[in-house]
């Protein structure tokens, strides 16, 4: 038996290590605080939870800012770290959670489900994502993943009186728990092979085991489970249903933050632990990336429900982000990190317009609901156009920079001399380029409804201060990342360098 570490002074130990989990601690304390003061808030004013949630997110940002320059390093016996990769993703999660909280306030009033638990659960889910981004051990990675997933299961089913929401939660829960079981089995085999749960240690131990059946099995099980979480084909069946039935604000949150968190652990595991055995999985991963973007786009072509359409589009975007992982270089991580950041803003913007169309008695989800939006609210229609142009990857918007980088990452590997997979990389790039063209078609179906059709529904849009703030921020960043990308690129590059 190895030496069991002796902790003499628990408080002293915690004080020394807690710097690495500062932002998470803030979120959890504020989330628990919301649950504790809930009974003091009168039933008509449960929306106050949003203010407390914003307080928690603000304090977490302050913590992140304090530790921005100094890296606290691995803490709690190499369980979590707050390196630049984790800080980059923490920033992304905080931004997504902030925008989600202020866009949900009015929406929950309309749905008549205003409860403080909603905001507490968003804080818990965000804390779980931060643990995932900072995890360098299988145990902390798993606990973070489950903290995020379980909070999200509840949030998806939050509209208790609606059958659609119940059904979405059921499907999401069953498939999510199933995929957790598969990931865990892979983890347990990996632990048995390497004798450690630390990702760096696993990476050292499995060198030279390329032909070991158990390693291949555990690798593919973890890959399958993670593909469930990032919604890659063929593990995407739950996505359209869960996205359609969930409260729209939570759909927006899931499509950016939950996906980004799953990608963060995907990168951690496949760079730190499996970085030296790329030969095993590179082909499978490339095929998954190609099939994911194609299938998502083809299925989106025929959708009439905008929530489903955006759900399929988010599947195809997952394929594009995977291209960075297929490249497997520093530039690959940079590209995927930029893609996830740009996607956060442009996709949250598009979803917030969908929330805007949700009015009393009008679901506002079908293509017809967008008819003639330009003639009634030109500013909203133009903003939506910007988001869609960006999602389709048209310059000079954020989506173009994101797509430029993933293609650059893949082509850099394809063109470098002595690379065994150059033809595979070229194929990935070609399929990706074709998919960009396909995606323009279905985004422009909505644009056509907005700008050409004229039968506009007379009911007023559900404007609120929070939603306007979200639209302004997301629109601003969508344009800003497109025309002045340097600061964002250097952030993402620093994140990729701290990972490898």
């Amino acid at each position, binding site marked *: *038996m*190895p030496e*069991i570490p002796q902790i003499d002074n628990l408080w002293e130990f915690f004080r020394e290590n807690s710097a690495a989990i500062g932002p998470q601690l803030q979120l959890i304390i504020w989330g628990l605080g919301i649950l504790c003061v809930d009974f003091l808030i009168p039933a008509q004013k449960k929306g106050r939870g949003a203010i407390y949630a914003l307080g928690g997110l603000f304090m977490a940002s302050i913590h992140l800012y304090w530790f921005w320059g100094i890296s606290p390093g691995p803490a709690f016996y190499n369980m979590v770290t707050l390196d630049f990769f984790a800080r980059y993703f923490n920033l992304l999660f905080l931004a997504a959670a902030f925008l989600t909280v202020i866009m949900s306030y009015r929406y929950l009033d309309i749905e008549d489900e205003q409860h403080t638990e909603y905001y507490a659960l968003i804080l818990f889910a965000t804390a779980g994502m931060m643990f995932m981004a900072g995890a360098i051990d*299988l*145990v902390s990675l*798993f*606990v973070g993943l*489950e903290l995020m997933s*379980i909070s999200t*299961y*509840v949030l998806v*089913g939050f509209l*208790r*009186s*609606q*059958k*659609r929401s*119940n*059904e*979405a*939660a*059921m*499907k999401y*829960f*069953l498939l999510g*728990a*199933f995929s*957790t*079981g*598969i990931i*865990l*089995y892979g*983890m*347990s*085999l990996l*632990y*048995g092979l390497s*004798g*450690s*749960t630390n990702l760096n240690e696993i990476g050292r131990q499995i060198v030279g085991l390329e032909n070991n059946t158990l390693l291949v099995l555990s690798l593919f099980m973890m890959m399958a489970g993670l593909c469930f979480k990032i919604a890659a084909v063929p593990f995407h069946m739950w996505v*359209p*249903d869960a996205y*359609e*039935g969930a409260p729209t604000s939570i759909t927006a949150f899931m499509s950016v933050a939950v996906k980004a968190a799953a990608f963060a652990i995907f990168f951690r595991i496949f760079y730190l632990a499996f970085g030296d055995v790329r030969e095993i999985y590179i082909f499978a991963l490339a095929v998954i990336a190609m099939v994911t973007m194609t299938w998502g786009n083809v299925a989106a072509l*025929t*959708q009439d429900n905008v929530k*489903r359409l955006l759900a399929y589009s988010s599947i195809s975007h997952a394929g594009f982000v995977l291209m960075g992982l297929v490249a497997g270089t520093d530039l690959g991580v940079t590209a995927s990190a930029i893609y996830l950041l740009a996607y956060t803003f442009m996709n949250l913007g598009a979803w917030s317009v969908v929330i805007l169309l949700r009015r009393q008695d009008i679901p506002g989800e079908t293509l017809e609901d967008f008819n003639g939006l330009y003639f009634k609210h030109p500013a909203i229609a133009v903003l939506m156009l910007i988001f869609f142009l960006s999602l389709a990857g048209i310059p000079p918007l954020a989506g173009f920079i994101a797509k430029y980088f993933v293609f650059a990452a893949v082509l850099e590997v394809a063109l470098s001399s002595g690379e065994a997979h150059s033809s595979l990389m070229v194929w990935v790039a070609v399929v990706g380029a074709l998919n960009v063209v396909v995606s323009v078609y279905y985004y422009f179906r909505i644009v056509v409804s907005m700008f050409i059709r004229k039968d506009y529904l007379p009911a007023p849009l559900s404007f609120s201060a929070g939603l306007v703030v979200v639209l302004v921020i997301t629109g601003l960043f969508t344009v800003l990342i497109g025309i002045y990308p340097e600061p964002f690129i250097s952030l993402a590059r620093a994140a990729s360098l701290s990972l490898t």
Partner: protein
Amino acid sequence: MVESLLDFLHIIFGQIDTAHYLVLSTIVFSIGVVGVLTRRNVIIILMSIELMLNSVNLNLVAFSDRLQDLSGQVFAVFVITVAAAEAAVGLGIVISLFRNKETVNVDQIDLMKG
């Protein structure tokens, strides 16, 4: 009772080592996966998922014993805790669905398609 059972197993399998535990966990995991994929009752699917998680625990504890390393057992304790939380949330979702729809059959949970 336990000792006679161990004697019985010893006669059949010889000395029980890690490989036996792995075979057992593989069997339990397979039963769980097949249960999730073929059963139509949500409660039974939940039970099958629990089987999958418990087979992971078997694996972890067997490896922990083999490697003389405690982290596997710690991991197993975390898995048990999280499985309990997950089951609680899952049953809550089943109840909220049952209130609106009065069914636990996944074939009848089909409002959304396409």
